[in-house]
């Protein structure tokens, strides 16, 4: 029972950060129809920004989260308006290759600046934890989850209440109609892409608390983020959140299954990604739009 609860907590804690990672990716895909392969690189840039501030000025990574968001937002906005906007209506493959190239460029630049050395942020509260009903909860990861949830909540409110947020949603529903009522689509695309990059940056800054930094650290998160947002439903804030938590919990519980098939011992721990992907397949068969996604025409 205790192990069950511990695994549940582990799953939720790791799912929160996955949700934040998936959120920016999902927004960009849902609204601009761009599979943003540079998303992992933005995560990495956010992480290194937090690391640099921590190392040079002893700034706590938590305080760097909003800054990473703002810096990466601005950076993303500029990248969109100057580079990506040129191919925004082109076939998916063009944007695919473009963002892939951008990712290579960013990672190589990071390799030049910070080298390939593994870095880490060792805060005074690194590893600090508390125990509740026999379940150990690390503070850093709990804090990460809370911040991820707050950001998700704020984004949801902003998309539904603010004028720009509504313009973004309108654009995702029907570009032509949005233009007709006066939405500046190019600006909206810039904001959306900036948001995607900003969210990735914030996630990267948060990740420094529990994850070592290298210039290619974004790769596994890009792939997981992609899976998570397909699982939850592309393009929606709720989808990323639900997808992230479900993915985190499934891969956490997958560690519990040890089976022997035809004399072959299969360890659940080794197969947690496989189990999560099988669940994704099942969801796609039963509910192609994802767990909480809306059906599209």
């Amino acid at each position, binding site marked *: 029972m*205790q*192990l069950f609860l*511990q*695994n549940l907590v*582990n*799953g939720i*804690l*790791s799912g929160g950060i996955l949700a934040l990672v998936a959120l920016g990716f999902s927004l960009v895909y849902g609204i601009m129809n761009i*599979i943003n*392969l540079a998303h992992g690189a933005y995560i990495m840039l956010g992480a290194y920004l937090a690391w640099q501030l921590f190392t040079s000025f002893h700034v706590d990574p938590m305080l760097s989260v909003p800054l990473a968001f703002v810096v990466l937002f601005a950076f993303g906005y500029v990248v969109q308006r100057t580079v990506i906007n040129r191919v925004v209506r082109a076939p*998916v*493959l063009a944007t*695919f*290759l473009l963002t*892939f190239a951008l990712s290579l460029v960013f*990672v190589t630049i990071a*390799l030049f600046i910070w*080298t*390939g*050395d*593994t*870095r*880490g942020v*060792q805060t005074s509260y*690194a*590893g600090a*934890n508390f*125990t509740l009903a026999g379940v*150990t909860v*690390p503070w*850093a*990861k709990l804090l990460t989850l809370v911040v991820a949830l707050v950001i998700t909540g704020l984004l949801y409110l902003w998309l539904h209440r603010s004028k720009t947020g509504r313009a973004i949603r309108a654009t995702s529903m029907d570009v032509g109609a949005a233009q007709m009522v006066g939405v500046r689509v190019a600006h909206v695309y810039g904001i959306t892409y900036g948001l995607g990059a900003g969210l990735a940056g914030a996630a990267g800054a948060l990740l420094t608390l*529990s*994850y*070592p930094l*290298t*210039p*290619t650290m974004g*790769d*596994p*998160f890009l792939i*997981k983020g*992609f899976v998570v947002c*397909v699982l939850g439903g592309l393009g929606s804030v709720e989808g990323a959140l639900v997808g992230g938590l479900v993915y*985190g919990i499934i*891969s*956490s*519980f997958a*560690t519990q299954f*040890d089976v022997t098939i035809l004399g072959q011992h299969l*360890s659940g*721990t*080794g*197969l*947690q*990604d496989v189990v999560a992907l099988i669940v994704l397949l099942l969801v*796609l068969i039963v509910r*192609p739009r994802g767990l909480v996604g809306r059906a599209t025409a």
Partner: protein
Amino acid sequence: MLRIIRLFLVAAFALASLGVPVAQVGAAGDTIVFGSAVSLTGSLTKEGHLTQEGYDFWKDYVNAHGGLKVGGKSYKVDIKYYDDESKPNNASQLAERLIDQDHVDFLLGPYGSGTAFTVAGIAERKKMPMVEGNGAAEKIFSQGYRYTFGVLSPAKKYLQRVLEMALLQKPRPQTLAISASSDAFSLEVQDGAVAWAKDHGLNVVYANKYPDGATDVSSVISAIKAAKPDIILNAGHLQDAILVNKGLKEQNVIAKLYGYSVGPDTPDFVSTLGKDAEDIVGGAQWSEAVTYQGVPGFYRTAKEYADAFDKQFHHRPDYHNAESTAACLAFQYALEKAGSLDKEKVRDALAGLDMITFFGLIKFDSRGLNVFKPMVVNQIENGKLVTVWPAAIAKAKVKYPARPWSAR
């Protein structure tokens, strides 16, 4: 959806077929050109760079000391590198390119067992002698290959020494938990440790693997904690070691000894974890403390090697540096012995090599594996690596039991 998946595959393929050349092509004639695909980006970046430093250090030494003397003629040495991006499939393609397009004379190994395994297959097909110092899995050497040689001790031995040391401590540990990354090297390290533990009356209470390149190991840690082991070992690479160590502290898992196969020896382990790295032990191929007296032709002791290395790269060499240099040394002595650049003759000379170097004995069994050199155990004390086993060369006694996380 299918379209997206297909696009993803296209990009993955594009990524795999990219090889980024990072050094200029070596000249022919009076230069012997070695080729190597090492991991300069990707999850094994750090280890790949350490490998490259080890190779370059030897190259610079040889070129500064009149070159390699082969059959009465002196040759300069050059090494052509490609970045395999930490992906074994890239490494094998790049090895083919090194052989077929760049016409290198010999191959130096990549970093890691998975990569060395794929490259060894190419070396065999092309009858190209390769010496590697960074792939310890026996899987590489159990294929009946004739052209691949490894200067390092086999993977199975990595953590056995740690256990050997632990069993002589008081209070004697009774139980062992060992997790492993699902790559060829780490699984063999785990197998070797588990088999040794069972033979010596240690109760293995947890032995499991997690996916290669995992980003979250908290559930593995929870299972280990529930098993209440005296000794916790992890078979994996640097990033795994950091993740596992952070996880053990976060869930406050208390054991008498913590040991990782790869990680504690690289400087990044201490710089990333700070005081949480204290008391951690690691199995190592080599340390500055070893006391071999090598044959002439290169730095003869570990200390001379380490001091000169420090002067050039501004950090003390770790065992990845040393084993990479040792791979080059195997070529140096074999080439001198063969007196020819003929690939068959060099291969035969490698197979017959029996030399003491600063790194230890370099001698290969019939499979091409150096089973003759022992491992050492290092522990992190005050941010420094200290050799604590075997007792004959230990600089200090091992700190046992390890202090609880809150007291470091």
